[in-house]
């Protein structure tokens, strides 16, 4: 009986922590999303008006489209590149440790510092890329001044930083695979492509799903790169959803509207994650 009591006492700090720092903010912001509050005057209950406004807000639609493009491009490119790199480095080589360390280095850069680095890298008149293109006689690229290429520049920076994450995950997955199925497939005469498609990919499915989920969630939340590199521009061509929510909440102090946007955002991310997991289960039959 005494042990039972101690068990509950020991659980209390964790429960308290979750209630204070997870449940309370969630409930508070959910209630806030049904109110108008700019901190300087008392909150006003407005029902679902903030959600209706969000659904009709062209800037929110734009931010959603930009975020979807960003997520699609970065997740696909990073997973593919990361996988290729992992295959290349999954073999005995001289200096492999050093090479691996070099490949993963960008992962440790702060995104906001990376954004400032990008400002120099993509400087259209005096940046290293501009000089390189000029030296090679290639046409000038409007890295940050054209709405289409500006989003491409943000995507490129993200790929540079996060491909090492996919590389690390896949490399760990490859190194953890049992040798027998691979050796058996080779003995059975499987070519490289068949080995990859019918042995490695199914065996790596849980690892792929994990990398996909993590990167999907991270990409959807992107803020720093767009904030630091382009400020969301030119126009609103790189204004991702997190940046738009930040502006509504912390620049304009429209806390109710920002909360409603956040909840819509949360719903979309959750739906995306659940959809991904279900699809992968369907494909590979793994739990």
């Amino acid at each position, binding site marked *: 009986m005494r042990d039972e009591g101690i068990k509950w006492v020991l659980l209390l700090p964790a429960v308290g922590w979750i209630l204070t720092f997870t449940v309370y903010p969630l409930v508070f912001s959910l209630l806030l999303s049904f109110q108008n509050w700019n901190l300087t005057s008392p909150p006003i209950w407005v029902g679902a008006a903030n959600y209706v406004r969000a659904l009709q807000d062209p800037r929110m639609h734009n931010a959603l489209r930009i975020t979807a493009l960003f997520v699609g491009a970065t997740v696909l490119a990073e997973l593919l590149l990361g996988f290729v790199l992992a295959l290349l480095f999954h073999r005995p080589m001289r200096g492999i440790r050093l090479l691996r360390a070099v490949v993963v280095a960008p992962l440790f850069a702060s995104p906001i510092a990376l954004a400032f680095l990008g*400002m120099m890298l993509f400087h*259209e008149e005096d940046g290293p890329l501009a000089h390189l293109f000029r030296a090679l006689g290639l046409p000038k690229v409007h*890295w940050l001044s*054209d709405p289409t290429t500006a989003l491409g520049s943000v995507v490129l920076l993200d790929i540079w930083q996060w491909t090492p994450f996919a590389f690390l995950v896949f490399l760990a997955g490859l190194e953890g695979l049992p040798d027998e199925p691979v050796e058996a497939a080779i003995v059975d005469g499987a070519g490289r492509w068949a080995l990859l498609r019918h042995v490695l990919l199914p065996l790596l499915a849980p690892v792929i799903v994990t990398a996909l989920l993590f990167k999907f969630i991270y990409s959807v939340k992107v803020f720093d790169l767009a904030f630091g590199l*382009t400020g969301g521009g*030119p126009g609103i*061509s790189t204004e991702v959803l997190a940046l738009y929510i930040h502006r509504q909440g912390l*620049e304009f102090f429209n806390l109710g509207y920002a909360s409603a946007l956040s909840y819509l955002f949360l719903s979309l991310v959750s739906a995306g994650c659940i959809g991904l997991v279900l699809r992968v289960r369907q494909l590979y039959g793994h739990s």
Partner: protein
Amino acid sequence: MKAVRWGVLGMVLFSLVGVAFAAARPFAGRTITLGVFAGGTRGAISGPFYYFRSAWEQLTGVRLNIVEIPFDQLPTKIKTDLITRAGRFDGFVPCATIYGDLVANNWIVPVDPWIRDPRFPRWDPNDMGPPVRQLYRWGGRQYGANYDADAWVLYGRRDLLNDPKEKAAFRTKYGYELRLPRTIKELLDVSEFFNNRDWNGDGRADFGIVLPLKVSAQGFFFYLAFAAPYVVVPGPTVDEYHNVFFFNPRTMEPIINSPGHVKALEDYIRLTKNGPRAQLGWDLVESWDPFLKGNAALTYSPGDIGSLAKNPDRSRIKGKLTAGPMPASTEYYDRRTGRWVQRLNRVGNLLGCSWHGLISSLSRNQEAIYHLFAYLAERPRLFQITTFGWGGVDPGKIYDFPPEVSNGQGTGSIQAYLRQGFDRQDALDWLRAYWQNYYEMDAWQEYLRIPGAPEMINSLDLHISQALVRRETPKQALDAVAREWTEIVNKLGRERLRRAYQESIGYGRPAPRYRPR
């Protein structure tokens, strides 16, 4: 007995000295915290506070904590401190755009009771040029002690504009004399003339004009400075139709999509074509570099260009700089008659932040922090700060201007600027440009500092950028801004904002004019 008497006398004397010392240093032992724009220990706005910190601490016995805050986080940090009643800052030095929120919520205190109080250093609010002086006030009360005065002026290359070959070529092409542009038409012609050709002989095409057009990076100021003469109708008083730029102050209907604004945005887009396309992604500092490195003929900007030009680490144009007020338009739109008026319209601006210290109503050390602001606002000290160049404090006080640039009315000395490394002619042209902007214009563009101003400015900033990249036409862009501003006005309360706007622009009062004292 004699020894006891001397002892008692000594103790009395010691106590008297102590009392006198304490009276002279009434705030000794306290610690105050100042939130200020992050310019570093020898940079804009925060630099002078570091420079004089030790001297002021010795004078008052107060310990000064300086908290540097990046530009884009400054309003949020200050407001959060006040909203949550944390009271971390005794005072702060914000951009004047957030005045509306600060005053409307009684978050700052007026300094009028202390200005003539002999316990504090003496400074005079009337030293500041009349239009800027208004930015330090609200509803007839003084809230800030003199510090910075910001405005956008036009900069050009004196050597280039005086080059006989360039002058001849310009005359042949445009049919009139080349000079630093005084009208918008001249600005468009001169920037076009120098754009996209190698006039400095470095093997690369140079630019007619460079501007920072990146969103969320002060780019909107550049449209505002350009558009002022198309929209602001001079008149003796500030009323529904005169001396206003953003709203009709009687109804709070936005006038941001009026024909004057639309024409201004169309011409502004033409102007931006006379510079590098890359400038669509440049922030303020990035846009200074091509001009300071000698690759651009023109730019317009706050006062920093004038002071950076003397710095050999940043500039190759020392001794080649000229400046003037923002060009006038040759026509303006009169909303009262609904017609364009064909007349030269010279409109000064107050763009930028005009940084100055404000006192938190939550502070327990209000007099101590006021002492600091007053100390820096004393004439000789503030003049010295202005001449530093690196301090980010631009000329605007009567004593900043030497007589030779101010028709004999200024009381400053050019020697002080020369001692800080300025080139004589560069400094004279720079100071004259500021003098003309603050003291000799037909009218001044008002400053948007009502509650909701940051959201309104963001909307303007984004739609101008959309028009610059041709995602919206000028009319579509400004109609969208007007729509969004109307929503903001309705959301925050039309009557509340109307009152705030009228108070902030001095509605119904005479328009600011310079009268020499």
